[in-house]
């Protein structure tokens, strides 16, 4: 697709929620008035300094921001190339970047007078973060989770229940994230009056992709300032894993207009793109409409959605945020992929070299970081978003190694 290079990559979405061809508001009419209300409420909140002040206060004292920028010295030596830095968003309260967005959305829900929270979750990280903020503000919370994900992420299911959330298993379709999202949308249609739907990624109907990106952009804003303070310059490359793409959008957004910072989004290649069993919607999909937005989707010739596959429940989704779809077409971000096996190797390497057990999601980003490190000179700098910690994944990894816990 040949398009003119824009003056800025940060102007989207347009008034109707479109990023070029992508995004939009593809929802049942019952939800349309709500989505328009949400957009109004969000615009008002953005313009209200007291909203940002309240959010900043919670991010500092409850979430634990700013998260550190860490020089991964041993991995740098291991690869023998550029300096590798981790943005340590796995050190946030609840162990992943997800809470940045949940905190923003629940403050918005309170502002709108909503009294009930729903969410969907894949790996359980977004579910845990949602259950956490719902507990903190005393709001009842229902989390939809695919039955297959409940099995592979049992510690997170128990955490959500401890936090007082109701976890509703979803047995339809592929019993993973996409089906949990269908079920959350069904709940929302049924409880429009009092319910706020905290979407966990930069997808869904407008204004969600922009709203989640804005709340997650704290990652990139901090990292950019930290890197300038530390190295006196910007990184040469920034790398993040992508399921729906919220941690990646949050990292990339503040760097979009820095032409010298190459951006890499790492999709999950599952058993390999060529096998068809993967979750790489940009590499293996084409534009379509699902869950409220137009974006790249894994689908068959007849427009039926194909089930994604990834060892990482958080990346196991057949779509991707619409802004990523646009950045892909504009060629501003390079979208690459890592297989289950490559992620597992990176997972172990990181644990042994850095004493950090990463979540399987950022293990995909780390796998690509290793590849890129081999191509770049020693005076270069790579910034990788360590968006989640791996405690939740030890059962999945143990099973893969044939170890009984």
């Amino acid at each position, binding site marked *: 697709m040949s398009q003119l290079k824009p003056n800025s990559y940060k102007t989207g979405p347009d008034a109707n929620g479109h990023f070029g061809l992508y995004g939009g*508001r*593809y929802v*049942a*009419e019952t939800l349309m008035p709500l989505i328009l209300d949400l957009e109004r409420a969000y615009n008002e909140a953005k313009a209200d300094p007291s909203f940002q002040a309240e959010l900043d206060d919670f991010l500092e004292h409850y979430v634990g921001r700013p998260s550190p920028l860490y020089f991964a010295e041993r991995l740098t030596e291991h690869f023998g190339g550029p300096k590798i830095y981790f943005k340590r968003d796995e050190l946030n309260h609840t162990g992943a970047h997800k809470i940045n967005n949940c905190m923003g959305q629940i403050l918005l829900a309170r502002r709108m007078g909503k009294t009930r929270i729903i969410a969907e979750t894949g790996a359980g990280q977004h579910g845990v973060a949602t259950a956490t903020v719902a507990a903190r503000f005393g709001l009842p919370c229902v989390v939809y989770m695919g039955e297959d994900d409940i099995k592979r992420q049992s510690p997170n299911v128990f955490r959500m229940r401890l936090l007082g959330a109701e976890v509703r298993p979803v047995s*339809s379709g592929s019993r993973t994230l996409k089906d949990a999202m269908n079920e959350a949308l*069904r709940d929302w249609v049924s409880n429009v009056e009092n319910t706020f739907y905290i979407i966990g990624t930069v997808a869904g109907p407008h204004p969600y992709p922009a709203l989640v990106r804005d709340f997650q952009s704290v990652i990139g804003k901090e990292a950019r300032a930290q890197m300038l303070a530390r190295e006196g310059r910007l990184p040469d490359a920034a790398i993040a894993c992508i399921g729906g793409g919220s941690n990646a959008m949050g990292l990339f957004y503040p760097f979009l207009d820095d032409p010298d910072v190459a951006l890499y989004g790492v999709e999950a290649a599952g058993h390999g793109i060529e096998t068809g069993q993967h979750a790489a919607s940009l590499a293996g999909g084409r534009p379509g*409409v699902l*869950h*409220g937005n137009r974006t790249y989707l894994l689908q068959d010739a007849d427009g039926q*959605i194909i089930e994604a596959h990834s060892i990482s429940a958080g990346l196991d989704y057949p779509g991707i945020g619409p802004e990523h779809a646009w950045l892909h077409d504009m060629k501003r971000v390079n979208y690459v992929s890592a297989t289950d096996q490559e992620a597992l190797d990176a997972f172990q390497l990181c644990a042994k070299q850095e004493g950090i057990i990463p979540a399987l999601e950022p293990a995909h980003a780390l796998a690509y970081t290793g590849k890129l490190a081999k191509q770049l000179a020693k005076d270069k700098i790579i910034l990788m978003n360590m968006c989640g910690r791996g405690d939740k994944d030890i059962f999945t990894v143990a099973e893969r190694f044939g170890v009984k816990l």
Partner: protein
Amino acid sequence: MSRIARRFAELKKQNRAGFVAFITAGDPNLETSFEILKDLPAAGADVIELGMPFTDPMADGPAIQLSSLRALKAGHTMAKTLDLVRRFRTHDQTTPIVLMGYYNPIYSYGGQKFCKDASTAGIDGLIIVDLSPEEDPELRPHAKAAGLDIIRLATPTTDAKRLPAVLDGASGFLYYVSITGVTGSKDIDPISVAKALKPLKAATSLPVAVGFGIKSEADAKAVAQTADAAVVGSALVAEISRFVGKDGKLSPGAPEAVLSLVRRLAASAHGARN
């Protein structure tokens, strides 16, 4: 005059409400689905809503979700949906058929080509649940060129501020979703439906069909007092479910059972104003 306009004009002349029957194309398989489809008019369906199966029907309750998945499992495709209507038209040239479903299979088919092929097959209108008025300008001109009505949905959340957006570009009839919920979930409340219809009727000259939540003959009768048509879907496809075993095997009798239910529901709707 379109088939839809003609049918609603006839109903008005007879001072009776219409009955709209929803089934999913290809459910539980192509042939059974055709057997049901071809006899729906004789059983009392004034308009037929034919569901286009989709893997992720997020506005539908369990009954229609399952019917969609049964059709897909049996190998159903969009081309087969159009074929089904083409075959139906060799028996029946007057009963309007409206396709109902989600946008992605249409987008994947290609909007312009789809509208042309659907119209040629004998389809009269489209209800695309997740294609909001904000997003449908990309399809509307193709539908119009092909003579297909775009049927819009109004819901209990459609307030006076929202209604003009819903009605702008609406044609054929207006579909009032009588509950805030997915298909077949909550029970319909005829009193609040009658109340909700007043501002709709005042704002549009289009006929108003009411659906989502009509389960029984009593519901159909109550809705038909005030609406121009009553739509039943989940109850019909749930009837098909009763003939599908856990192993997916179909036992005989599904078409007769569905058609018999249609006869009872249609009779209730048709007789409501007597």
